[in-house]
């Protein structure tokens, strides 16, 4: 097999977005009828690489890429995803792209329906031809047959179990006459284990028929069980390109996350902290894209507790749910007192504060001045920075106190601005983030939730924000719960780090634990405390 020319090859693909290199000299090949597993952390470059392959507009709009993509030995460069489809490359996305009110058949042949011509076609064009339903059904059935699964061709998508939707999507891609390469992005993410098994069997079936497959998944045991070859990306580079035979989940996990795998026993000795500040039991949160299914943990008084995990696994849902921003259920106790969920006011009144990952949407009043932004929540919740007249009938803002407060925080957090009256939208991302922190600090919370505090800000500002958090924690004894996609920053300031996978906590590790263990947790391998070395 190996001396045959590969179906697809990437040669020296390099791509940067405005100077930030996201792909660096990526090269690998994929043979006919082979399954290639593409693994890597969020931001490792998987999505960008697939965008390059599909000719997504975002690539050309940001200056194109260098290197060549070869399909069947021919250099190709698709201008739109439709060109890629015409060349026989199919893509199955993580989100379903199906028409809910259509049947399986109608979805599989969507916009490629079989038609019968009639006189109206001569006058008004192709689209007036009548659908040939029996033929459409036969085509759908043959696609389902190739996949080797059971699907009712006449069932409405809206009434299907989630696994069938995924099969319908794949059947739609292989219904194309010329499909040679199939890209599946996290196809098993929404499936139960038994459904995932059937899907993997279907993929092997397709590969046996000569269709090549790129399989992107963070469930490493699935990657290992189905793939012939595994390519690991990290920071935009191929760090490992190897046959799947003989590789273990632990190997792949350490390739994914590891700069150097054995750097245990790093910064900061474990602190001995008394009592529990926050106890969470069986929490579920319905936050779109960040569903939390069942999470229990307890945060000690004065601790910095980290929540990590891959995007979409639910780590952001935890603070958002506890603070009442999305529908949630379960028990949350703050210093032994139960907190009412689904009510932001109750959470704030209880003494918790939140720095949202959605800085511009939830965090800031963009068109208002800095003093307004910083004092706003304290004013609403605690009635501070207000002057009372006429025995409480009239309350006006205390501009002087607000100014003093703002100047204090501008100095404390080193916020670069022209003064308390500058508009929040005029600041850079890092300084906006500091305003968000100041706003939360002004509440003097007993527990502070911080969600993605360093997202979208530059390296220098990142360090400052993290330093501020650490100082605030040490100086005031404030308990901090920090959710972040960046494992490194969690490990650098947290006392303990919980890794969330599929809406559940896969495990809680000390920051000094080997990276490979974090990687295993992210890959959905439960590591119980006893097994740890």
């Amino acid at each position: 097999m190996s001396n045959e020319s590969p179906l697809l090859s990437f040669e020296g693909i390099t791509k940067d977005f405005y100077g930030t290199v996201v792909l660096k000299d990526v090269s690998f090949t994929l043979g006919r009828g082979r399954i290639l597993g593409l693994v890597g952390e969020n931001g490792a470059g998987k999505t960008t690489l697939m965008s390059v392959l599909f000719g997504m507009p975002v690539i050309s709009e940001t200056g194109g890429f260098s290197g060549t993509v070869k399909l069947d030995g021919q250099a190709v460069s698709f201008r739109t995803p439709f060109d890629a489809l015409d060349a026989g490359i199919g893509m199955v996305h993580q989100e379903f792209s199906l028409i809910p009110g259509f049947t399986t058949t109608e979805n599989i042949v969507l916009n490629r329906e079989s038609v019968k011509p009639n006189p109206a076609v001569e006058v008004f064009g192709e689209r007036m031809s009548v659908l040939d339903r029996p033929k459409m059904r036969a085509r759908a059935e043959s696609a389902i047959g190739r996949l080797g699964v059971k699907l009712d061709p006449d069932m409405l998508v809206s009434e299907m179990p989630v696994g069938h939707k995924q099969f319908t999507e794949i059947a739609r891609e292989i219904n194309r006459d010329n499909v040679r390469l199939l890209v599946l992005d996290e196809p098993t993410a929404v499936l139960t284990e038994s459904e995932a098994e059937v899907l993997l069997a279907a993929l092997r079936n397709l590969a046996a028929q000569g269709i090549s497959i790129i399989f992107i998944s963070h469930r490493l045991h699935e990657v290992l069980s189905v793939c012939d070859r595994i390519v690991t990306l990290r920071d935009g580079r191929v760090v490992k390109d190897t046959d799947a035979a003989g590789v273990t989940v632990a190997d792949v996990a350490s390739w994914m996350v590891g700069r150097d795998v054995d750097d245990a026993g790093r910064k900061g000795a474990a602190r001995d902290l008394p009592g529990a500040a926050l106890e969470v039991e069986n929490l579920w949160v319905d936050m779109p894209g960040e569903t939390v299914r069942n999470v229990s943990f307890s945060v000690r008084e004065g601790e910095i507790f980290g929540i990590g995990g891959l995007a979409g696994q639910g780590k952001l849902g935890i603070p958002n749910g506890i603070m009442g921003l999305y529908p949630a259920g379960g028990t949350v106790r703050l210093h032994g007192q139960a907190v009412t969920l689904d009510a932001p006011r109750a959470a704030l009144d209880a003494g918790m504060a939140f720095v949202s990952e959605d800085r511009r949407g939830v965090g800031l009043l963009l068109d208002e001045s800095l003093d307004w932004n910083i004092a706003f929540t304290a004013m609403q919740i605690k009635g501070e920075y207000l002057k009372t007249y006429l025995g409480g009938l009239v309350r006006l803002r205390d501009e002087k106190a607000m100014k003093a407060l703002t100047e204090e925080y501008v100095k404390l957090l080193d916020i670069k601005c022209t003064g308390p009256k500058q508009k929040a939208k005029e600041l850079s991302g890092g300084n906006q983030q500091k305003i968000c922190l100041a706003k939360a600090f002004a509440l003097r919370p007993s527990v502070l939730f911080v969600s993605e505090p360093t997202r979208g800000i530059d390296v220098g500002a990142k360090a400052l924000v993290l330093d501020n958090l650490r100082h605030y924690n040490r100086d005031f004894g404030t308990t901090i719960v920090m959710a972040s996609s960046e494992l490194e920053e969690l490990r650098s300031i947290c006392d303990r780090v919980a890794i969330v996978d599929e809406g559940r906590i896969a495990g809680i590790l000390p920051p000094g634990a080997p990276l490979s263990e974090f990687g295993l947790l992210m890959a959905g391998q439960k590591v119980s405390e006893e097994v740890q070395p």
Partner: protein
Amino acid sequence: MSKTFDPRKFLADNLVVVIFLVVTAFAVPVSGLSAQFIIQELFTRIGRNAFLVFSLLLPIMAGMGINFGMVLGAMAGEIGLIIAVDWGILGVNGLAFASLVGMPIAVFLGWIAGEVLNRAKGREMVTGYILGFFMDGVYQLVVLYMMGYIIPIRSPAITLSRGYGIRNTLGLDSVRQSLDNLLAVRIGPYVLPLATYMVIGLLCVFIIWFRRTKLGQDMRAIGQDQGVSHSAGISVERTRIIAIMISTVLAMIGQIIFLQNMGNMATYNAHKQTGFFAAAALLVGGASVSKATIPNVFIGVVLLHLMYIVMPRAGAQLFGEAQIGEFFRDALSYAAIAMALVIYAWRKRANAERARAGLRGGEAAAGGVK
């Protein structure tokens, strides 16, 4: 979906229909009108209105809601009729001629409306409604100032005494009920406008056939999910424009059929309520903003007009004042539209919640994976 009959679900799905049935069931005996009169009126009004209501079906299928912009088509039909009357073309030929004149105008206006609505995705209904008001101004400019001035009008009988502009009321004697009487059939005490019914029947056949075409399938797909349709390669914008263009052209023909039955035309007002009445009829027939069928059209026309026939008389009998009945029927029609919109929004949210219900409630509701 569910095999068992759930009275609450049935009521929620057909609330508007049920309310109209109850109200008219009370009003019919109170009005004291004879069954024969009511039935004859209904036969006439089905012929008069059904075509206009049909023009709303395709945009609903394409997910654009109720096309209140159909008044643009009505205006095109009126311009066609003015020219036909001026040229003195008699009978059915006059109607055909009016349609021919109105056709390019309707196609053009429909294209404009489609382009505008494509820029207002998600707010098609209110945009279409306001677009109707705007085009009303343009219509006045054309009919009141340009006709007889830029557009040659020869008949002094239809022009204002100042020499240009069309009179407020246009007598349509040359084409009055020409389609209705072309094939009027007497069955017992009733007279049926069979030719009009045949035109409507033809339209039904067209719509059924259209649903089975590739274009119809594309419209259904777009109506449910524009993003998915686009990524499947269906040209969303173009298909939406075609839906609005067909709707506008049908409204043009519908307005001509409506006016030939009425026999005269309030030049500057005839189209103002067209969209409202058509929408009310369709919604009363049990349609929603996202789903409408051919039976909805007929049920709606019958129910709405049954109420329109009996309400003034019922008001007169009960309160000695026909006006009260008229107020009441207008209020009910508006309420029907408002209620249909609210129920639609409420149901959409309930469905979204139900779709996510599996994710809620932690392990137990999620089926206890692991």
